[in-house]
C-alpha cells in the first residue's frame, strides 16, 4: 500500500490514504515507524479512530461481560459485525469507513478510489462513494476474496451474501489487482464478463530490503540460517522443519554448529509473541534455534546480510504467494523451501540458482534441503550469486507498482486531480 501510494504521488497524483490509527495497528502485530517514515511526504494520511476490538488487550476497556467470558464476547462481536457486512472481524467498521471516504471526497473531490483488501469491508466504502458520487474505483484484492488460498477451494458461492457483494463490487470496478496468475484465473473464470479487467500485480520486494553486502560464510563459527516473516503456518509444519533441522545438523558436518534464527511476528493482540510456535522454537534451543521477535523495516537488509541461508516456510498451495518470497530471492542467499510441492511460490522461485527446490513438507526431504543449502552457502560461486540477484531483479516492488499505477492511469485516462 505504501509503495502504491508513493507511486501515485510520484506520477503526479494528489493522494489521500485512509487508514486506522497507529495505536490500532499496534494492537494487531505492532507498529513499525521506520516503515511509515518511507511514505512520500506529499501523501496525506487520514487516520480513523477504529480499533479491532477483538484484539484489545487493555482490560480497562473491557465490559464486565467481556472480562467474564472473553471468548463468548468475541463470538457475539463477530455476529454483530456480520450484521453490518459479511466479514466477522471488520464488518462493524463499515459505517465509519463509508463516512470517512465521503468526508474526504467532500473536502477534496477524488477522481479515483483504490481500495486494498483486507478488510473487505472497505469495499462497502468504495461502493458508497460510487453510488453517491460516481467516483470510479479499482480493487486491489491481493489474495482474492472468493478463493480460499489456503485450502485451494472456493471460499463462498456466488449466491451468498459475500458472493453478491463481490459480484456487485467487481461489476463496476475499473480494475482488479491480484497477486498471482492462479488467483487471476479464478476471477477470470468466475466473472468472464470482466476478465479483461483482472490484472496480476505481484507483491515484489523493496529495494532497500535487499542487503548491500553479505558476510563471508564461516562454518568454523557456525553457519546461520534465517527465517523472516509472520508465522501463519500451523505448528505441525514448524515442528517438521525443526525436526528436519535437527536431523540435518546431526548428519552434516557443515551444520554441526549451525544456528537457525527465527525472526518475525508471531500472534496478535494478547497472544503477540506467545503461543505454540514460540514454545516450539524455545524447545529447539539446544539445536541452535532462537526466536528474536520482529525486525524493523529499516533493519531488514542488515538482518539478511547477517545470514548465510534462508528458510522459507509457508502454508497454502497453488493459489498462495507470500510477499516474502521476493525479498528472500533478492537477498541472494540459498533458500530452503518448506511448503506444498505445488505451491504458487514455486513458479517464482523456479530458476533461482541457489534454491534447493520444492520437495513438499516431508521431514527427510527438508533435512536434505538443509544439507544442500549448507553446501550452497559455502560453495556457491560469485556467478551463481549474481545470477540469483538477477533472477530477483524483475520483482522490484517499485518497478511493479510503477507499471501497475501507470496502466491504471492510462486505462482511465484520468487527468483530473493531478497536481502537475
Amino acid at each position, binding site marked *: 500500500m505504501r509503495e502504491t501510494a508513493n507511486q501515485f504521488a510520484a506520477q503526479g497524483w494528489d493522494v489521500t490514504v485512509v487508514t486506522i490509527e497507529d495505536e490500532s495497528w499496534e494492537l494487531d502485530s505492532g507498529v513499525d515507524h521506520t516503515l511509515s517514515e518511507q511514505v512520500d511526504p506529499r501523501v496525506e494520511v487520514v487516520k480513523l479512530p477504529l480499533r479491532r476490538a477483538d484484539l484489545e488487550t487493555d482490560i*480497562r476497556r473491557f465490559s464486565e461481560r467481556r472480562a467474564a467470558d472473553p471468548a463468548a464476547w468475541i463470538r457475539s462481536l463477530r455476529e454483530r459485525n456480520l450484521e453490518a457486512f459479511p466479514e466477522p472481524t471488520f464488518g462493524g467498521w463499515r459505517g465509519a469507513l463509508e463516512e470517512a471516504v465521503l468526508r474526504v471526497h467532500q473536502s477534496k473531490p477524488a477522481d479515483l478510489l483504490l481500495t486494498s483488501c483486507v478488510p473487505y469491508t472497505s469495499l462497502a466504502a468504495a461502493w458508497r462513494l460510487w453510488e453517491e458520487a460516481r467516483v470510479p474505483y479499482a480493487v486491489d484484492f491481493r489474495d482474492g476474496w472468493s478463493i480460499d488460498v489456503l485450502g485451494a477451494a472456493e471460499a463462498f458461492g456466488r449466491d451468498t451474501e459475500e458472493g453478491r457483494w463481490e459480484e456487485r463490487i467487481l461489476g463496476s470496478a475499473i480494475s482488479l489487482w491480484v497477486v498471482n496468475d492462479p488467483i487471476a484465473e479464478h476471477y477470470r473464470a468466475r466473472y468472464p464478463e470482466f476478465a479483461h479487467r483482472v490484472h496480476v500485480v505481484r507483491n515484489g520486494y523493496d529495494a532497500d530490503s535487499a542487503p548491500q553486502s553479505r558476510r563471508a560464510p564461516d562454518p568454523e563459527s557456525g553457519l546461520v540460517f534465517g527465517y523472516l516473516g509472520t508465522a501463519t503456518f500451523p505448528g505441525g509444519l514448524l515442528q517438521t522443519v525443526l525436526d528436519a533441522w535437527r536431523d540435518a545438523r546431526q548428519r552434516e558436518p557443515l551444520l554441526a554448529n549451525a544456528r537457525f534464527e527465527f525472526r518475525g511476528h508471531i500472534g496478535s493482540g494478547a497472544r503477540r509473541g506467545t503461543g505454540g510456535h514460540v514454545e516450539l522454537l524455545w524447545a529447539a534451543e539446544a539445536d541452535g534455534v532462537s526466536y528474536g521477535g520482529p525486525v524493523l523495516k529499516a533493519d531488514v537488509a542488515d538482518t539478511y546480510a547477517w545470514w548465510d541461508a534462508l528458510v522459507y516456510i509457508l502454508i497454502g498451495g497453488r493459489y498462495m504467494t507470500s510477499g516474502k518470497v521476493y525479498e528472500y530471492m533478492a537477498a541472494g542467499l540459498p533458500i530452503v523451501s518448506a511448503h506444498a510441492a505445488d505451491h504458487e511460490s514455486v513458479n517464482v522461485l523456479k530458476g533461482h540458482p541457489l534454491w534447493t527446490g520444492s520437495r513438499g*513438507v516431508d521431514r527427510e526431504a527438508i533435512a536434505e534441503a538443509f544439507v544442500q543449502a549448507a553446501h550452497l552457502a559455502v560453495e556457491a560461486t560469485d556467478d551463481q550469486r549474481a545470477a540469483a540477484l538477477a533472477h530477483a531483479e524483475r520483482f522490484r516492488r517499485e518497478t511493479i507498482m510503477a507499471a501497475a499505477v501507470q496502466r491504471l492511469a492510462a486505462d482511465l485516462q484520468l487527468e483530473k486531480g493531478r497536481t502537475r
Partner: protein
Amino acid sequence: MIDVLFVCSKTPPMSVVADTLDKLNAEGARVVFGGLIPSRAAREHRDELDFAETHDLVQAKVRRAVQLPRGEQVWLRVRSDSWLRERARKAGVLVALDEQAVYTVWQLAQRNRTAKAVYGFAPAVNAVRELKRTGVAPSGSFRPPLSLVARDGARAVRRLPDATARLVTARPIMRRSLGERLWRLPLRVPGVPTGLRVPIGRRVAEALNWAGRRGGATYTLVLTASKVSDPALKAELLETAVNQDYQRGIVPPHLDTAVQALLDLADLRQSEGRYEEAARNLRNALLLTFHRVAHIDGLTSPLTADPGRFVKRIHSSRAMQTVMTPRGRLRPAAPPPADRPLRLLLTTNENANFLRHIIHRYDAHPDVEVRYLDVASEEVLKKVSRSDQRVMQERMGGDDAYAAQLEQLMRPHLDWADTVFLDWCAAPATALTNLDPGDTRIIIRLHSYEAFTRFPHMVDFSRVDDLVFVADHVQDLTTSLVPQLRGPHAPRMHVLHNAMDLGGFAREKTPDARFNLGLVGIGQVAKDPLWALEVLRRLRERDDRYRLLLVGGDMNPRASRASKKYSKQFEEELEPLVEAGAVLRLGPTDDVAGKLTDIGFILSTSVREGCHVGLMEGAASGAVPVVRDWPFYAGKAHSARTLYPEGWVLDTPEAAAQRVLQVNVSEESWLDHSRLAAKYAQSTWDWSVVSADFDRLFLGEQR
C-alpha cells in the same frame, strides 16, 4: 520502581514467561507472580526464574462457581487470597496471562483504579514502558467503586431463590444418605410438572456432586429423566448423567438407556426433516457408545465380549441405518494402467508413522508415481475430513453444501489418482467414502484402535475396493462389528504386516542384556505395564539380577479419569522398584534400536494390540519375546497365539516368568533363543519381505 503483578489460572508457556520477565526486569520493574499452576514441573521452572515473589493462589471452594464461566470461577475462588489483594493494591501494572485470568484482573483493576490492566505478555512490556514515560504511581487505595458494589448487591438479590435452594441442599445435608433420599422424593412423585421436576433434579444433582456423592448425582438425573416425556429433555438429562460417569472414569451403568434416548431422538428428528439435530444426536449416541473410558482407557471393553450384541442397539436406529446404507459407485475401479506408471495417492490424517517406508519405496519405483496428502496440512480439508456429523447429516439428505465442498476439495485428488491408499480407518475414511470415487481404486488400512471407535460404522464400504488389516484378529473383530463387511458390498480384505525396516535393529547385545526385560511403549493403559511389574517381581523373587527397562513417554493422565487412575496406581507400584534399581525409566527416544542393545527379553503385556511394533522390533534385535495372550482376543480364532510363533505367548505373569527362567537357564540357551527370534522377525516382518505384499496390493501380480 514499577510493581507488576502476573495473574494466571493455568500453566503458562514458561519460555515466554521467562523471556517477558527478562524484558521487564531490564526495564527496572519488580515482577511478582500469583497463579494457579497445576503442573509441578512448571511450578519448579517458575521458581527458578527471577521473580521478586511467587505465590500459588489459595482456592476457596465456592459451590455456585461450578455453574459460572471459567473466568468468574477463578475470581470467586481466589478473591479472598490476601497475598493477591495486597500485591494488586501496590501494583502499577496488572497482567492477565491467560483468558480465564482476565476477569480476576478486571476485578482487581476495579479496586486499584490507577494501575494499568492488560492481557498478554507483549502488552505487559508495553504497559511498563508507557508507565515509565508517564510516571503515574498507584494510589494505594483498594476499594471497588460504588457502582460495582451496587451491581454485585443486585445480582445477589436476583440469585436469592438459587441461594436458598443451595442452603437447603448444603453439603453437610447432602453428604448423608437421608438428605439424598429426602430430596429424591419429589422427583419420584408422579404428576409434578416438568417445569418444576427438571430444575429440582438438576439442583439436587448439583448438590450431590458438590457433596461428593457423584453416583447419587448421576442416579438423580437418570431418575428425573425417567419421569420426563419430552424426548429432547430426557436425552439431555441422560447424556449429562452418563458423561458425568465417564468423567469419573467409570463405565456408566445407565449407558444403554442414555444411548437409546439419543437414538430415539435422532430418529424422531430425522422423521421431522430436522437433519442437523438428527445428526448431532446420533453422533452423541455414538460418542457415548464408543467412549474412550469404556474401550481405550481400561483393561476390558464391553465391545469384545460380544461384538454383535454390543452394536445391535445403534444399528437398530433408523437414522443410523440411513447413514450406513451403501450408496455404491457408478463405475468399478479401473485396472492399473498398462501404458504409464500407476498414480498412487498416499494419504493420512497427521499420523504418517506407518507410511514412511511405503512412501519411500513407491517414490523410487519406476512403475509408480506417488503423491502424498496429509489432510491435516490444509485447514479447510482438515475440517471437512473430520466433520463426521456433517457426513451423517449429508447422508440423511440435509447437507448439500458439505457434499459440494467435499467434492470440490477431494475430487481433484481422486481425478489424478488411479489408486488411493488411506491410512487409518478413522474420520477421513467416512468423508472419503461420501464421494463416488469414479473409477479410482480405494484402499483403506485399519490398524487396531479404529475398531473401537464409531468410524468403521460410518464408512461406506461399498465404495472401498480393498480393506487392509495388520492382523487377522483385528479383521475378525471389525467384521463382526460392521455389517457392511459381511454383506454383498464388502471390499476385498487383506492382512498385511506393517512396513518396518528391521535391518537396523540387529546389533550386538551388552553383557548384562539377558537379565534385562524391556517394554517399549507404555503411553497407554492398554499396554498394561502393571503386568510387566508382576512378571519382574516374580523373577526377582528367584534372581535379583533381573531388571525392567521402560522405553517411551509416560501415560497422559489427562486423557481421562480412567487413564489417571491407572497411571496413579502404576506410579505407586513403580516408585519403590525404581528406587531399588529394579526398574529403569529410559523415557522417550528416537533411538529405540540403541536402547534395545541393553534388552535381552522383550515384553508385550498389552490387553489389546494390532501387531505390536515394539515387540517385533525387539524380536528383530535379538531380544527374546515374552508375549501376554492379549486378553481382548485370547481364546478366539485369531489372537496373539496365531500371530506369533508357538512358545512366545503366555497366559499369566507366572508363566511369563517361567519362560524367562527357562530360556535363561544358560547363556547359550538365551543366545539360541535370541538368534531364532531375530531370524524369525527379519524373515517375516522386515520391509524387504513385506514390501512384496504391498507390490501385489498396488500393482497386482504382473509387475
